[in-house]
């Protein structure tokens, strides 16, 4: 069974009635507006992509710098060459100092 409504018309649509809706200039205007909108959207999408890439690279650079500074602190604290350790002076050294 169909789910359609069938309407019977006595007459065809007149050409005059159809002509009222025929407007190519309007169609072109809509088309140009559509093209402009599409270009704007493309530009917007590209800007967002560039912005995201830039922010990611800036973040990466910053985290890289932080890591370097942390690594520097670690090498000082646990240096391969031991820092000089103060040992109590011997009797002979005390006499020389006096």
């Amino acid at each position, binding site marked *: *069974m*169909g*789910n*359609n*409504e*069938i*309407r*019977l*018309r*006595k*007459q*065809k*649509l007149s*050409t005059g*009635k*159809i002509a009222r*809706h*025929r407007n*190519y200039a*309007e*169609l*072109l205007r*809509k*088309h*140009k507006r*559509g093209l402009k909108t599409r270009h704007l959207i493309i530009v917007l999408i590209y800007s967002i992509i560039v912005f995201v890439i830039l922010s990611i690279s800036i973040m990466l650079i910053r985290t890289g710098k932080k890591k370097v500074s942390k690594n520097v602190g670690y090498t000082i604290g646990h240096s391969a060459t031991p820092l000089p350790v103060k040992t109590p002076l011997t009797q002979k050294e005390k006499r020389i100092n006096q």
Partner: protein
Amino acid sequence: MLSEDDIRKEYAILERSGKNSQAFGELYERYFDRIFNFIYRQTDDEDLTADLCSQTFLNALKNASRFEFRGLPVSAWFYRIASNEVNKHYRKVKKEKVFSIEEILIKELVEINNDSWSDELVQKLVKYMHDLPTEMLEVLQLRFFEDKDFKEISYILSITESGAKMRTYRALDRLRKNFNIRVKHYGK
């Protein structure tokens, strides 16, 4: 029917339209009335038809550079876009589809003497059409009211050519059995 040379000429216009939108005007003027009538037969609403028709040509103009030549007239492509626009509209509003048919077209479809026509018979035919599935009505509309051949119908409705033929013949067989009348057209 357009010759292959005419079809190629139209295709050349469409190709030019991809770069220069003004060129599309020729096709617009040539097919506007036919597409308008085609949509109107599926809406019965002048303003809605104007909107859908405008959207059809707008889509065609936007995608002019993507059109592929398949040996079919450019109008078949317009009908296909229009059919999709109509279906999209009905999906959106969730209403039953309207088929608004001129009485004269129904009378042309069936071979009967003018005197034998009665309001009762017309109403019976309308009832018969009401009971047909949408797919069959779409094919009948294109075949008899828009005068399209099966190759074009299959392209417009995105079905196979044999599928289009099968739907048409089934609908016509039912018509013959129910009304015991002769159908004028029986396919090209």
